[in-house]
């Protein structure tokens, strides 16, 4: 078992408008892509965000060696409960997932 952050080049998260968050996992190689693609279940991401798996959209961009997840923002951007205006820190929730 290895942590996701040790396998891939970068995990990036960002707002996709005020209501959505999008996470791009740049695997960097075909090997890493295959490993993450088979080892990182959408349910693991759902667990990290404490939401239902059905709320998450998953995209596999094999040519780019990228796996992308999009989900409704944990809190709408800029509301009282929101703590990260640009949503860039949510990526760290995936770093330690064991693959």
């Amino acid at each position: 078992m290895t942590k996701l952050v040790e396998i891939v080049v970068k995990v990036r998260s960002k707002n996709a408008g005020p209501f959505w968050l999008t996470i791009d996992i740049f695997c960097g190689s075909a090997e890493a892509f295959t490993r993450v693609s088979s080892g990182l279940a959408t349910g693991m991401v759902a667990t990290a965000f404490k939401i239902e798996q059905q709320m998450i959209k998953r995209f596999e961009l094999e040519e780019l060696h990228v796996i992308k997840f999009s989900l409704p923002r944990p809190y709408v951007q800029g509301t009282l409960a929101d703590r990260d205006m640009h949503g860039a820190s949510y990526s760290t929730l995936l770093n330690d997932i064991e693959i």
Partner: protein
Amino acid sequence: MVRVLIPSGALGLGYDRDALARGVACKPDIIAIDGGSTDSGPHYLGSGTSKYSRQSTKSEWRELMAARAEANVPLVIGTAGTCGADTAVDWLVAITQEIATETGANIKVAVLKSGQDLDAMTAALEAGRISPLDPAPELSTEVLKGCTNIVALAGAEQIQAALATGADIIIAGRTTDTAIISALPLARGCHAGAAWHGAKIGECGALATTSPNSGTILIEFDSEGCTVIPMGETAQATTHTISAHMLYENSDPYILIEPGGHLDVAGARYVSLDETRVRITGSKWVPSHRYTVKLEAARRTGYQTVSLALVREPRYVAHVRQWSDDIIAKCSAKVRERLDLSAADFTLELRLIGVDATLGDLETHIASSSEVGVLGVVTAQSQSLAREIAKLLNPYLLHHPLTEQEEMPTFAFPFSPPEMDRGEIYEFCLNHVLELADPMEAFQLTTLEMAG
């Protein structure tokens, strides 16, 4: 062939002047730049103001106006003043007038406003012309009444109408990031899929290249595709940097929804022409049955005062959650009693910086640190009330003991006073689209002659 020069990802962000000069030398047909986005939060739309400094905006806009005069082509800015509200458009129009006066320029300016008035929005809601996107906040006429600004995102059609006035400069309110780039190629019959795809690649300037800080990028559009050409001296567009840009701030990497249809890049082909240029073909534009524009709005949710204290004593750091929970309970009770308020009249929160201030209840990594920042956040229905409550919080942040039986501790306040008024607080309250019978129906286009 239509050449669109994009100086940078947003006015006020800066760009490499040499790259811009190189772009002007390439004889563009139009210069297009974005003026904002929702990414910095609801404050700007809520207040109708710009995020960037006026002086910085003026200085860059003056240079772009000079570049426009040299190239002798239109200059268009979308989402003027960060949020594209009417007041933010007026702000940039005033800056433009100042520059025209100072430089002795005679220019024709088209002003496209995207602000929506309450009566029209209420009528549209009642007529069923406003539909929710996913996830959409609850919408009612009451919600609409509470909005300080409602804007509709203009697409290519409205920018084309502005271009058709023959204006030298177009200052547009809220538009989609891409419409200011795609409008001219589409009007001149370039490939529609390529017009929107190239626009998406170019909307952040050189961000889609190996040298994001160079800012400037040129895109050539034709009847079959488009070619992306970075203007920075060492900037390169590669098939990877270009294709990866569709991921950026986009929830679906293949689809981009615009007024009047959507872009589908699933079949796009990317080819490196040489070390710096990438050719894109195969993107598809799919027109929709209805013409809809996205709506954005912000409403005031209260006023805030924040306080900052620092906890350094190891025993308090070790038990900081217990300490802060106790403060919340005791201080909230005191606020209700002293100010005769109910629990619904205010919120009082302590965010523990160094513990979980960023991720809140999603945090799994509780590391021990030598100190903890305690950010008190008070929200209430007036600034004076928020400040009163924050003043009631003050003695706790300064002296609250972990147990009753111990010497009174004193924590670190970095400022005097520790309370800072944050002013009005806003939130985004629409994620909806508005159906239009005519693309210009929800927008106002006027022209001005400015004489130096």
